[in-house]
Protein backbone atom coordinates (compact mmCIF):
# COMPACT_ATOMS: atom_id res chain seq x y z
CA UNK A 1 0.00 0.00 0.00
CA UNK A 2 2.89 2.33 -0.75
CA UNK A 3 0.96 3.81 -3.67
CA UNK A 4 -0.44 7.29 -3.36
CA UNK A 5 -2.73 6.83 -6.32
CA UNK A 6 -6.44 6.54 -5.71
CA UNK A 7 -7.56 2.92 -5.75
CA UNK A 8 -10.25 3.74 -8.29
CA UNK A 9 -10.74 6.73 -10.54
CA UNK A 10 -13.78 6.66 -12.78
CA UNK A 11 -14.23 9.72 -14.90
CA UNK A 12 -17.32 10.40 -16.98
CA UNK A 13 -17.99 6.71 -17.66
CA UNK A 14 -20.72 6.18 -20.21
CA UNK A 15 -22.07 3.00 -21.72
CA UNK A 16 -25.09 2.53 -23.90
CA UNK A 17 -26.70 -0.65 -25.16
CA UNK A 18 -28.78 0.32 -28.16
CA UNK A 19 -31.26 2.93 -27.00
CA UNK A 20 -30.60 2.23 -23.31
CA UNK A 21 -28.02 4.29 -21.46
CA UNK A 22 -26.84 1.93 -18.74
CA UNK A 23 -24.14 4.19 -17.33
CA UNK A 24 -24.44 7.92 -17.85
CA UNK A 25 -21.35 10.02 -17.18
CA UNK A 26 -20.50 8.33 -13.89
CA UNK A 27 -17.50 9.63 -11.98
CA UNK A 28 -16.15 8.20 -8.77
CA UNK A 29 -12.91 8.30 -6.83
CA UNK A 30 -12.08 5.78 -4.15
CA UNK A 31 -9.06 6.15 -1.90
CA UNK A 32 -6.95 3.20 -0.76
CA UNK A 33 -8.40 1.50 2.28
CA UNK A 34 -11.99 2.59 1.78
CA UNK A 35 -14.81 0.07 1.97
CA UNK A 36 -17.40 1.37 -0.44
CA UNK A 37 -20.92 0.12 -1.08
CA UNK A 38 -22.25 0.69 -4.54
CA UNK A 39 -25.93 0.79 -3.74
CA UNK A 40 -28.77 0.93 -6.17
CA UNK A 41 -31.80 -0.92 -7.48
CA UNK A 42 -31.57 -3.56 -10.19
CA UNK A 43 -30.86 -1.91 -13.52
CA UNK A 44 -29.13 1.10 -11.98
CA UNK A 45 -25.97 0.34 -13.95
CA UNK A 46 -23.96 -1.19 -11.11
CA UNK A 47 -22.88 -4.30 -12.97
CA UNK A 48 -22.08 -2.43 -16.17
CA UNK A 49 -19.97 0.03 -14.19
CA UNK A 50 -18.11 -2.83 -12.50
CA UNK A 51 -17.52 -4.53 -15.86
CA UNK A 52 -15.92 -1.34 -17.17
CA UNK A 53 -14.00 -0.86 -13.94
CA UNK A 54 -12.46 -4.31 -14.36
CA UNK A 55 -11.79 -3.92 -18.06
CA UNK A 56 -14.36 -6.56 -19.04
CA UNK A 57 -16.33 -3.98 -21.00
CA UNK A 58 -15.16 -0.97 -22.94
CA UNK A 59 -16.71 2.39 -22.03
CA UNK A 60 -18.30 4.41 -24.83
CA UNK A 61 -16.83 7.46 -23.15
CA UNK A 62 -14.85 8.22 -20.05
CA UNK A 63 -11.80 6.67 -18.43
CA UNK A 64 -10.97 4.12 -15.77
CA UNK A 65 -7.79 4.14 -13.68
CA UNK A 66 -7.14 1.48 -11.08
CA UNK A 67 -4.28 2.05 -8.62
CA UNK A 68 -2.76 4.52 -11.05
CA UNK A 69 -2.81 2.15 -14.04
CA UNK A 70 -5.14 0.49 -16.48
CA UNK A 71 -7.61 -2.20 -15.39
CA UNK A 72 -5.80 -4.78 -17.55
CA UNK A 73 -2.51 -4.04 -15.87
CA UNK A 74 -4.06 -4.21 -12.39
CA UNK A 75 -5.62 -7.58 -13.26
CA UNK A 76 -2.40 -8.95 -14.75
CA UNK A 77 -0.43 -7.97 -11.66
CA UNK A 78 -2.98 -9.40 -9.25
CA UNK A 79 -3.62 -5.98 -7.75
CA UNK A 80 -7.35 -6.21 -8.31
CA UNK A 81 -9.57 -9.25 -7.88
CA UNK A 82 -13.29 -9.62 -8.20
CA UNK A 83 -16.23 -11.76 -7.24
CA UNK A 84 -18.79 -11.44 -10.01
CA UNK A 85 -22.34 -12.66 -10.36
CA UNK A 86 -21.75 -14.20 -13.73
CA UNK A 87 -18.26 -15.66 -13.38
CA UNK A 88 -18.60 -19.40 -13.77
CA UNK A 89 -16.77 -22.29 -12.22
CA UNK A 90 -15.79 -25.64 -13.68
CA UNK A 91 -18.20 -28.19 -12.26
CA UNK A 92 -15.87 -31.15 -12.68
CA UNK A 93 -12.99 -29.72 -10.65
CA UNK A 94 -12.86 -29.97 -6.89
CA UNK A 95 -12.88 -26.83 -4.78
CA UNK A 96 -9.19 -27.33 -3.98
CA UNK A 97 -8.22 -27.96 -7.61
CA UNK A 98 -10.02 -24.81 -8.71
CA UNK A 99 -7.98 -22.74 -6.26
CA UNK A 100 -4.72 -24.50 -7.17
CA UNK A 101 -5.29 -24.08 -10.88
CA UNK A 102 -6.18 -20.41 -10.59
CA UNK A 103 -3.18 -19.86 -8.37
CA UNK A 104 -0.85 -21.00 -11.14
CA UNK A 105 -1.99 -18.11 -13.33
CA UNK A 106 -0.38 -15.59 -10.99
CA UNK A 107 3.23 -14.76 -10.28
CA UNK A 108 2.62 -14.85 -6.55
CA UNK A 109 -0.32 -15.99 -4.45
CA UNK A 110 -1.26 -16.73 -0.89
CA UNK A 111 -1.16 -20.46 -0.11
CA UNK A 112 -4.17 -22.51 -1.23
CA UNK A 113 -4.84 -23.77 2.29
CA UNK A 114 -4.86 -20.24 3.62
CA UNK A 115 -7.39 -18.81 1.16
CA UNK A 116 -9.66 -21.83 1.60
CA UNK A 117 -9.51 -21.28 5.33
CA UNK A 118 -10.18 -17.57 5.05
CA UNK A 119 -13.12 -18.13 2.75
CA UNK A 120 -14.50 -20.71 5.15
CA UNK A 121 -14.41 -23.65 2.73
CA UNK A 122 -11.35 -25.58 3.93
CA UNK A 123 -13.63 -28.44 4.95
CA UNK A 124 -14.97 -28.94 1.42
CA UNK A 125 -11.67 -28.71 -0.49
CA UNK A 126 -12.17 -32.20 -1.92
CA UNK A 127 -15.76 -31.64 -2.95
CA UNK A 128 -16.53 -31.41 -6.66
CA UNK A 129 -17.73 -27.90 -7.51
CA UNK A 130 -20.89 -29.22 -9.20
CA UNK A 131 -22.01 -30.62 -5.84
CA UNK A 132 -21.48 -27.38 -3.91
CA UNK A 133 -24.37 -25.13 -2.91
CA UNK A 134 -24.70 -21.66 -4.38
CA UNK A 135 -23.32 -20.15 -1.20
CA UNK A 136 -20.32 -22.50 -1.21
CA UNK A 137 -19.61 -21.69 -4.84
CA UNK A 138 -19.77 -18.00 -4.02
CA UNK A 139 -17.27 -18.49 -1.23
CA UNK A 140 -15.06 -20.38 -3.68
CA UNK A 141 -15.18 -17.33 -5.96
CA UNK A 142 -14.21 -15.28 -2.94
CA UNK A 143 -11.30 -17.66 -2.21
CA UNK A 144 -10.12 -17.22 -5.83
CA UNK A 145 -10.26 -13.45 -5.38
CA UNK A 146 -8.18 -13.71 -2.20
CA UNK A 147 -5.42 -15.65 -3.97
CA UNK A 148 -3.37 -12.73 -5.32
CA UNK A 149 -3.76 -10.81 -2.04
CA UNK A 150 -5.23 -7.92 -4.05
CA UNK A 151 -5.01 -4.26 -3.13
CA UNK A 152 -8.52 -3.79 -4.48
CA UNK A 153 -11.36 -6.27 -4.11
CA UNK A 154 -14.51 -5.79 -6.17
CA UNK A 155 -17.66 -7.74 -5.41
CA UNK A 156 -20.82 -7.58 -7.51
CA UNK A 157 -23.85 -8.45 -5.39
CA UNK A 158 -21.86 -11.23 -3.76
CA UNK A 159 -24.70 -12.58 -1.65
CA UNK A 160 -27.41 -12.76 -4.30
CA UNK A 161 -29.28 -16.01 -3.95
CA UNK A 162 -27.88 -16.82 -0.54
CA UNK A 163 -30.12 -17.40 2.42
CA UNK A 164 -29.87 -15.18 5.48
CA UNK A 165 -27.36 -17.42 7.19
CA UNK A 166 -25.26 -17.72 4.06
CA UNK A 167 -25.20 -13.95 3.68
CA UNK A 168 -24.10 -13.50 7.28
CA UNK A 169 -21.34 -16.09 6.94
CA UNK A 170 -20.11 -14.54 3.74
CA UNK A 171 -19.86 -11.06 5.19
CA UNK A 172 -18.19 -12.38 8.30
CA UNK A 173 -15.58 -14.05 6.12
CA UNK A 174 -15.07 -10.83 4.19
CA UNK A 175 -14.81 -8.80 7.36
CA UNK A 176 -12.42 -11.25 9.00
CA UNK A 177 -10.27 -10.91 5.98
CA UNK A 178 -10.37 -7.12 5.63
CA UNK A 179 -6.70 -6.58 6.18
CA UNK A 180 -5.59 -3.08 6.89
CA UNK A 181 -5.38 -1.10 3.72
CA UNK A 182 -7.30 -3.31 1.31
CA UNK A 183 -9.83 -1.35 -0.68
CA UNK A 184 -13.19 -3.02 -1.07
CA UNK A 185 -15.99 -2.04 -3.43
CA UNK A 186 -19.17 -4.02 -3.38
CA UNK A 187 -22.37 -3.59 -5.31
CA UNK A 188 -25.56 -4.44 -3.53
CA UNK A 189 -29.23 -3.68 -3.53
CA UNK A 190 -29.53 -4.62 0.12
CA UNK A 191 -29.53 -1.50 2.29
CA UNK A 192 -28.61 -3.40 5.41
CA UNK A 193 -25.48 -4.82 3.78
CA UNK A 194 -24.33 -1.38 2.72
CA UNK A 195 -25.11 -0.08 6.18
CA UNK A 196 -23.37 -2.88 8.04
CA UNK A 197 -20.20 -3.33 6.00
CA UNK A 198 -19.33 -0.10 4.21
CA UNK A 199 -17.58 3.05 5.38
CA UNK A 200 -18.98 4.89 2.44
CA UNK A 201 -22.10 4.51 0.36
CA UNK A 202 -22.40 5.54 -3.25
CA UNK A 203 -26.02 5.58 -4.37
CA UNK A 204 -26.56 5.06 -8.07
CA UNK A 205 -29.65 5.48 -10.14
CA UNK A 206 -30.00 5.30 -13.90
CA UNK A 207 -26.27 5.14 -14.35
CA UNK A 208 -25.50 8.20 -12.28
CA UNK A 209 -24.25 8.81 -8.75
CA UNK A 210 -27.14 10.41 -6.88
CA UNK A 211 -25.62 10.47 -3.41
CA UNK A 212 -22.18 9.79 -2.06
CA UNK A 213 -21.08 9.99 1.51
CA UNK A 214 -20.07 8.18 4.63
CA UNK A 215 -22.57 5.69 5.92
CA UNK A 216 -23.46 8.19 8.63
CA UNK A 217 -24.04 10.95 6.10
CA UNK A 218 -26.24 8.78 3.95
CA UNK A 219 -28.18 7.74 7.02
CA UNK A 220 -28.56 11.41 7.95
CA UNK A 221 -30.19 11.99 4.60
CA UNK A 222 -32.81 9.71 5.94
CA UNK A 223 -32.79 10.53 9.61
CA UNK A 224 -35.13 13.10 11.09
CA UNK A 225 -38.16 14.51 9.38
CA UNK A 226 -39.17 16.74 6.59
CA UNK A 227 -41.39 19.72 7.27
CA UNK A 228 -43.21 20.95 4.21
CA UNK A 229 -45.21 24.15 4.05
CA UNK A 230 -46.65 26.57 1.55
CA UNK A 231 -44.69 29.77 1.97
CA UNK A 232 -44.40 32.11 -1.01
CA UNK A 233 -41.15 34.00 -1.03
CA UNK A 234 -39.54 31.88 1.65
CA UNK A 235 -36.19 33.10 2.91
CA UNK A 236 -34.14 30.01 2.28
CA UNK A 237 -31.00 31.29 3.98
CA UNK A 238 -32.83 32.32 7.15
CA UNK A 239 -34.54 28.94 7.40
CA UNK A 240 -31.27 27.12 6.83
CA UNK A 241 -29.71 29.07 9.69
CA UNK A 242 -32.24 27.80 12.19
CA UNK A 243 -30.91 25.31 14.74
CA UNK A 244 -31.38 21.67 13.81
CA UNK A 245 -31.95 22.30 10.11
CA UNK A 246 -30.07 19.96 7.76
CA UNK A 247 -31.31 21.20 4.43
CA UNK A 248 -33.84 23.58 2.94
CA UNK A 249 -35.33 23.20 -0.46
CA UNK A 250 -37.66 25.65 -2.14
CA UNK A 251 -39.93 24.38 -4.87
CA UNK A 252 -42.14 27.17 -6.19
CA UNK A 253 -44.34 28.25 -3.32
CA UNK A 254 -43.43 25.21 -1.27
CA UNK A 255 -40.58 24.93 1.14
CA UNK A 256 -39.15 21.66 2.42
CA UNK A 257 -37.03 21.69 5.54
CA UNK A 258 -35.12 18.59 6.51
CA UNK A 259 -34.47 18.65 10.21
CA UNK A 260 -33.84 16.70 13.36
CA UNK A 261 -36.24 18.95 15.29
CA UNK A 262 -39.47 19.11 13.34
CA UNK A 263 -41.47 20.56 16.25
CA UNK A 264 -39.27 23.64 16.50
CA UNK A 265 -39.36 24.20 12.76
CA UNK A 266 -43.13 23.81 12.58
CA UNK A 267 -43.53 26.22 15.50
CA UNK A 268 -41.23 28.71 13.80
CA UNK A 269 -43.03 28.46 10.49
CA UNK A 270 -46.48 28.89 12.05
CA UNK A 271 -45.61 31.69 14.46
CA UNK A 272 -42.96 33.72 12.67
CA UNK A 273 -43.91 33.34 9.03
CA UNK A 274 -47.01 33.22 6.88
CA UNK A 275 -46.56 29.54 6.20
CA UNK A 276 -49.68 27.40 5.86
CA UNK A 277 -50.49 23.77 4.99
CA UNK A 278 -47.69 22.55 7.24
CA UNK A 279 -46.98 18.86 6.94
CA UNK A 280 -44.48 16.81 8.89
CA UNK A 281 -43.27 13.50 7.47
CA UNK A 282 -40.66 11.16 8.83
CA UNK A 283 -38.07 9.52 6.63
CA UNK A 284 -36.06 6.42 7.13
CA UNK A 285 -33.18 4.93 5.23
CA UNK A 286 -35.57 3.00 3.06
CA UNK A 287 -37.36 6.22 2.11
CA UNK A 288 -34.10 7.98 1.41
CA UNK A 289 -33.00 5.06 -0.70
CA UNK A 290 -36.25 5.03 -2.61
CA UNK A 291 -36.33 8.78 -2.97
CA UNK A 292 -32.81 8.88 -4.27
CA UNK A 293 -32.94 5.82 -6.43
CA UNK A 294 -36.32 6.03 -8.08
CA UNK A 295 -37.15 8.33 -10.89
CA UNK A 296 -38.65 11.70 -10.02
CA UNK A 297 -41.91 12.30 -11.75
CA UNK A 298 -42.56 15.90 -12.57
CA UNK A 299 -40.91 18.38 -10.19
Amino acid at each position, binding site marked *: *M*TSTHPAVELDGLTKTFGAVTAVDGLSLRVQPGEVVAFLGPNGAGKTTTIDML*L*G*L*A*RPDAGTVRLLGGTPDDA*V*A*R*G*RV*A*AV*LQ*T*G*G*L*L*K*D*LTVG*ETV*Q*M*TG*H*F*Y*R*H*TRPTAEVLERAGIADIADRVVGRCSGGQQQRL*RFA*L*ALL*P*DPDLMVLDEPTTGMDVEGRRDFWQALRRDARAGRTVIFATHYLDEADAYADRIVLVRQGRVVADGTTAEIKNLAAGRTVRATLPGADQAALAALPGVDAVEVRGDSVLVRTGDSDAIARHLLTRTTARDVEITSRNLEDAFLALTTEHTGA
Partner: protein
Amino acid sequence: MTTLPATPAATRTDRPDEPDRRLPALGGFAPAVLRIELRRVLRNRRTLAFTLIMPGFFFLIFGLPQGGQTLDNGRPVTAYVMISLAVYAAMVATTSAGGAVATERALGWSRQLRLTPLRPTAYVATKLITAMALGLLAVVVEFLVGAAAGVRVPAYVWLLAGLAAWLGSLVFAAFGLFVGYLVPAENVMQFIGPILAVLAMFGGLFVPLEVLPDVLQQVAKFTPVYGVGELSRAPLTGAGVSMAAVANVAFWALVFGVGAARLFRRDTARV
Protein backbone atom coordinates in the same frame (compact mmCIF):
# COMPACT_ATOMS: atom_id res chain seq x y z
CA MET B 1 36.82 6.44 -1.65
CA THR B 2 33.18 6.74 -2.51
CA THR B 3 30.28 7.61 -0.35
CA LEU B 4 27.14 5.68 -0.85
CA PRO B 5 24.01 7.77 -0.90
CA ALA B 6 21.69 7.11 2.00
CA THR B 7 19.20 4.44 1.08
CA PRO B 8 15.58 5.52 1.30
CA ALA B 9 14.12 4.65 4.66
CA ALA B 10 10.83 3.53 3.22
CA THR B 11 11.84 0.21 1.76
CA ARG B 12 9.43 -2.64 1.78
CA THR B 13 10.67 -4.06 5.03
CA ASP B 14 7.54 -2.77 6.72
CA ARG B 15 5.64 -5.40 4.77
CA PRO B 16 7.92 -8.35 4.34
CA ASP B 17 5.12 -10.34 2.75
CA GLU B 18 4.48 -7.72 0.07
CA PRO B 19 3.12 -9.69 -2.88
CA ASP B 20 5.18 -9.99 -6.02
CA ARG B 21 3.34 -7.81 -8.50
CA ARG B 22 5.33 -8.73 -11.58
CA LEU B 23 3.52 -10.20 -14.54
CA PRO B 24 3.45 -14.00 -14.63
CA ALA B 25 5.92 -15.69 -16.95
CA LEU B 26 4.54 -17.01 -20.26
CA GLY B 27 1.25 -15.18 -19.79
CA GLY B 28 0.29 -17.46 -16.91
CA PHE B 29 0.95 -20.69 -18.82
CA ALA B 30 2.02 -23.31 -16.29
CA PRO B 31 2.91 -27.01 -16.59
CA ALA B 32 1.13 -27.62 -13.28
CA VAL B 33 -2.12 -26.53 -14.91
CA LEU B 34 -1.56 -29.08 -17.67
CA ARG B 35 -1.42 -31.75 -15.00
CA ILE B 36 -4.77 -30.66 -13.56
CA GLU B 37 -6.26 -30.42 -17.07
CA LEU B 38 -5.07 -33.95 -17.88
CA ARG B 39 -6.50 -35.23 -14.64
CA ARG B 40 -9.79 -33.61 -15.63
CA VAL B 41 -9.99 -35.28 -19.03
CA LEU B 42 -8.99 -38.64 -17.55
CA ARG B 43 -11.76 -38.30 -14.96
CA ASN B 44 -14.33 -37.75 -17.67
CA ARG B 45 -15.90 -41.17 -18.27
CA ARG B 46 -17.51 -40.10 -21.50
CA THR B 47 -14.17 -38.98 -22.96
CA LEU B 48 -12.50 -42.20 -21.88
CA ALA B 49 -15.26 -44.31 -23.35
CA PHE B 50 -15.13 -42.63 -26.76
CA THR B 51 -11.39 -42.14 -27.11
CA LEU B 52 -9.78 -45.10 -25.37
CA ILE B 53 -12.26 -47.91 -24.86
CA MET B 54 -14.47 -47.75 -27.96
CA PRO B 55 -11.69 -47.65 -30.60
CA GLY B 56 -9.94 -50.56 -28.87
CA PHE B 57 -13.21 -52.46 -28.81
CA PHE B 58 -13.77 -51.71 -32.51
CA PHE B 59 -10.40 -53.26 -33.24
CA LEU B 60 -11.27 -56.41 -31.37
CA ILE B 61 -14.58 -56.90 -33.22
CA PHE B 62 -13.69 -55.54 -36.70
CA GLY B 63 -9.92 -56.00 -36.88
CA LEU B 64 -9.21 -59.32 -35.22
CA PRO B 65 -11.54 -61.42 -37.40
CA GLN B 66 -9.29 -60.45 -40.34
CA GLY B 67 -6.26 -62.04 -38.70
CA GLY B 68 -4.10 -63.97 -41.15
CA GLN B 69 -5.11 -61.81 -44.15
CA THR B 70 -2.41 -59.69 -45.71
CA LEU B 71 -2.13 -56.53 -47.76
CA ASP B 72 -0.51 -56.47 -51.21
CA ASN B 73 2.91 -55.98 -49.65
CA GLY B 74 2.45 -58.88 -47.25
CA ARG B 75 1.79 -56.84 -44.13
CA PRO B 76 -1.17 -57.86 -41.92
CA VAL B 77 -4.61 -56.36 -42.55
CA THR B 78 -5.06 -56.16 -38.78
CA ALA B 79 -2.31 -53.49 -38.69
CA TYR B 80 -4.21 -51.53 -41.36
CA VAL B 81 -7.36 -51.60 -39.22
CA MET B 82 -5.41 -50.80 -36.06
CA ILE B 83 -3.71 -47.73 -37.55
CA SER B 84 -7.01 -46.48 -39.02
CA LEU B 85 -8.69 -46.80 -35.64
CA ALA B 86 -5.75 -45.11 -33.92
CA VAL B 87 -6.32 -42.12 -36.25
CA TYR B 88 -10.00 -42.22 -35.34
CA ALA B 89 -9.25 -42.43 -31.61
CA ALA B 90 -6.80 -39.53 -31.80
CA MET B 91 -9.17 -37.31 -33.77
CA VAL B 92 -12.04 -37.90 -31.37
CA ALA B 93 -9.69 -37.26 -28.43
CA THR B 94 -8.28 -33.99 -29.75
CA THR B 95 -11.64 -32.74 -31.00
CA SER B 96 -13.31 -33.34 -27.65
CA ALA B 97 -10.43 -31.77 -25.71
CA GLY B 98 -10.41 -28.73 -28.00
CA GLY B 99 -14.18 -28.57 -27.93
CA ALA B 100 -14.02 -28.30 -24.15
CA VAL B 101 -13.71 -24.53 -24.61
CA ALA B 102 -17.40 -24.59 -25.57
CA THR B 103 -18.27 -25.98 -22.15
CA GLU B 104 -16.02 -23.53 -20.38
CA ARG B 105 -17.51 -20.63 -22.27
CA ALA B 106 -21.05 -21.84 -21.55
CA LEU B 107 -20.26 -22.15 -17.86
CA GLY B 108 -18.74 -18.66 -17.77
CA TRP B 109 -15.29 -19.93 -16.79
CA SER B 110 -13.61 -18.01 -19.60
CA ARG B 111 -15.08 -14.83 -18.14
CA GLN B 112 -13.73 -15.78 -14.73
CA LEU B 113 -10.31 -16.28 -16.35
CA ARG B 114 -10.37 -12.75 -17.68
CA LEU B 115 -10.08 -11.59 -14.08
CA THR B 116 -6.73 -13.40 -13.75
CA PRO B 117 -3.35 -12.67 -15.35
CA LEU B 118 -3.80 -15.70 -17.65
CA ARG B 119 -3.47 -14.49 -21.23
CA PRO B 120 -6.00 -15.94 -23.69
CA THR B 121 -3.20 -17.34 -25.85
CA ALA B 122 -1.79 -19.19 -22.83
CA TYR B 123 -5.26 -20.63 -22.22
CA VAL B 124 -5.54 -21.85 -25.80
CA ALA B 125 -2.01 -23.25 -25.65
CA THR B 126 -2.97 -25.22 -22.54
CA LYS B 127 -6.06 -26.57 -24.29
CA LEU B 128 -4.04 -27.52 -27.38
CA ILE B 129 -1.37 -29.33 -25.39
CA THR B 130 -3.99 -31.13 -23.31
CA ALA B 131 -5.72 -32.16 -26.53
CA MET B 132 -2.49 -33.44 -28.03
CA ALA B 133 -1.61 -35.33 -24.84
CA LEU B 134 -4.98 -37.04 -24.92
CA GLY B 135 -4.51 -37.71 -28.64
CA LEU B 136 -1.15 -39.35 -27.95
CA LEU B 137 -2.69 -41.46 -25.24
CA ALA B 138 -5.46 -42.53 -27.61
CA VAL B 139 -2.91 -43.66 -30.25
CA VAL B 140 -0.79 -45.49 -27.67
CA VAL B 141 -3.77 -47.32 -26.18
CA GLU B 142 -5.01 -48.41 -29.61
CA PHE B 143 -1.52 -49.66 -30.52
CA LEU B 144 -1.22 -51.49 -27.20
CA VAL B 145 -4.54 -53.21 -27.84
CA GLY B 146 -3.30 -54.14 -31.31
CA ALA B 147 0.06 -55.40 -30.08
CA ALA B 148 -1.57 -57.39 -27.31
CA ALA B 149 -3.91 -58.94 -29.88
CA GLY B 150 -0.97 -60.05 -31.99
CA VAL B 151 -0.33 -57.28 -34.54
CA ARG B 152 3.32 -57.50 -35.63
CA VAL B 153 4.97 -54.92 -37.89
CA PRO B 154 8.51 -53.47 -38.04
CA ALA B 155 9.39 -50.90 -35.41
CA TYR B 156 9.58 -48.04 -37.92
CA VAL B 157 5.97 -48.70 -38.93
CA TRP B 158 4.78 -48.44 -35.34
CA LEU B 159 6.75 -45.26 -34.91
CA LEU B 160 5.97 -43.44 -38.16
CA ALA B 161 2.33 -44.49 -38.29
CA GLY B 162 1.89 -43.51 -34.66
CA LEU B 163 3.56 -40.14 -35.17
CA ALA B 164 1.47 -39.40 -38.27
CA ALA B 165 -1.77 -40.35 -36.52
CA TRP B 166 -0.85 -38.26 -33.52
CA LEU B 167 0.49 -35.16 -35.28
CA GLY B 168 -2.31 -35.31 -37.84
CA SER B 169 -4.80 -35.07 -35.01
CA LEU B 170 -3.60 -31.49 -34.52
CA VAL B 171 -6.02 -30.68 -37.35
CA PHE B 172 -8.81 -31.91 -35.11
CA ALA B 173 -7.58 -30.13 -32.02
CA ALA B 174 -7.98 -26.98 -34.14
CA PHE B 175 -11.38 -28.24 -35.32
CA GLY B 176 -12.42 -28.76 -31.69
CA LEU B 177 -11.33 -25.24 -30.76
CA PHE B 178 -13.10 -23.88 -33.83
CA VAL B 179 -16.38 -25.52 -32.87
CA GLY B 180 -15.76 -24.65 -29.21
CA TYR B 181 -15.57 -20.96 -30.04
CA LEU B 182 -18.46 -21.21 -32.48
CA VAL B 183 -21.08 -22.59 -30.11
CA PRO B 184 -21.18 -22.17 -26.36
CA ALA B 185 -22.79 -25.47 -25.40
CA GLU B 186 -22.23 -27.61 -22.37
CA ASN B 187 -22.02 -30.83 -24.32
CA VAL B 188 -20.71 -29.98 -27.72
CA MET B 189 -19.53 -33.55 -28.40
CA GLN B 190 -23.13 -34.72 -28.58
CA PHE B 191 -23.44 -33.24 -32.03
CA ILE B 192 -19.78 -33.33 -33.08
CA GLY B 193 -19.52 -37.06 -32.42
CA PRO B 194 -21.75 -38.11 -35.34
CA ILE B 195 -20.02 -35.58 -37.62
CA LEU B 196 -16.66 -37.11 -36.75
CA ALA B 197 -17.99 -40.59 -37.51
CA VAL B 198 -19.10 -39.47 -40.99
CA LEU B 199 -15.77 -37.74 -41.62
CA ALA B 200 -13.93 -40.86 -40.44
CA MET B 201 -15.95 -42.91 -42.93
CA PHE B 202 -14.87 -40.56 -45.75
CA GLY B 203 -11.32 -40.76 -44.46
CA GLY B 204 -11.36 -44.50 -44.95
CA LEU B 205 -10.96 -45.24 -41.27
CA PHE B 206 -13.81 -47.73 -40.95
CA VAL B 207 -13.66 -49.37 -44.37
CA PRO B 208 -11.03 -48.88 -47.08
CA LEU B 209 -12.02 -46.11 -49.49
CA GLU B 210 -11.67 -48.56 -52.40
CA VAL B 211 -14.93 -50.24 -51.43
CA LEU B 212 -16.87 -46.98 -51.75
CA PRO B 213 -18.53 -45.94 -55.05
CA ASP B 214 -16.17 -44.01 -57.30
CA VAL B 215 -17.95 -40.66 -56.86
CA LEU B 216 -17.69 -40.92 -53.09
CA GLN B 217 -14.03 -41.83 -53.37
CA GLN B 218 -13.41 -38.61 -55.30
CA VAL B 219 -15.40 -36.54 -52.80
CA ALA B 220 -13.60 -38.21 -49.91
CA LYS B 221 -10.26 -36.83 -51.05
CA PHE B 222 -11.43 -33.35 -50.11
CA THR B 223 -12.70 -34.21 -46.63
CA PRO B 224 -10.59 -33.47 -43.52
CA VAL B 225 -9.77 -37.01 -42.41
CA TYR B 226 -8.56 -38.29 -45.77
CA GLY B 227 -5.05 -36.82 -45.57
CA VAL B 228 -4.36 -37.92 -42.00
CA GLY B 229 -5.58 -41.43 -42.76
CA GLU B 230 -3.45 -41.76 -45.91
CA LEU B 231 -0.30 -40.40 -44.25
CA SER B 232 -0.71 -42.63 -41.19
CA ARG B 233 -1.12 -45.82 -43.23
CA ALA B 234 1.64 -44.96 -45.70
CA PRO B 235 4.44 -46.46 -43.56
CA LEU B 236 2.47 -49.73 -43.46
CA THR B 237 1.29 -49.97 -47.05
CA GLY B 238 4.53 -48.64 -48.48
CA ALA B 239 2.42 -46.69 -50.97
CA GLY B 240 4.44 -43.55 -50.41
CA VAL B 241 3.30 -40.12 -49.34
CA SER B 242 1.00 -38.56 -51.94
CA MET B 243 0.95 -34.81 -52.47
CA ALA B 244 -2.84 -34.97 -52.32
CA ALA B 245 -2.68 -36.28 -48.76
CA VAL B 246 -0.15 -33.68 -47.64
CA ALA B 247 -2.13 -30.88 -49.28
CA ASN B 248 -5.30 -32.17 -47.65
CA VAL B 249 -3.77 -32.04 -44.16
CA ALA B 250 -2.22 -28.61 -44.74
CA PHE B 251 -5.46 -27.20 -46.14
CA TRP B 252 -7.67 -28.38 -43.28
CA ALA B 253 -5.12 -27.43 -40.64
CA LEU B 254 -5.15 -23.94 -42.13
CA VAL B 255 -8.94 -23.73 -42.39
CA PHE B 256 -9.59 -24.87 -38.83
CA GLY B 257 -6.58 -23.07 -37.38
CA VAL B 258 -7.49 -19.72 -38.95
CA GLY B 259 -11.16 -20.25 -38.16
CA ALA B 260 -10.41 -21.01 -34.53
CA ALA B 261 -8.05 -18.03 -34.28
CA ARG B 262 -10.65 -15.64 -35.71
CA LEU B 263 -13.42 -16.84 -33.43
CA PHE B 264 -11.02 -16.79 -30.51
CA ARG B 265 -10.22 -13.15 -31.21
CA ARG B 266 -13.89 -12.31 -31.48
CA ASP B 267 -14.49 -14.07 -28.17
CA THR B 268 -11.78 -12.21 -26.30
CA ALA B 269 -12.64 -8.80 -27.75
CA ARG B 270 -14.41 -6.44 -25.42
CA VAL B 271 -17.97 -5.41 -25.88
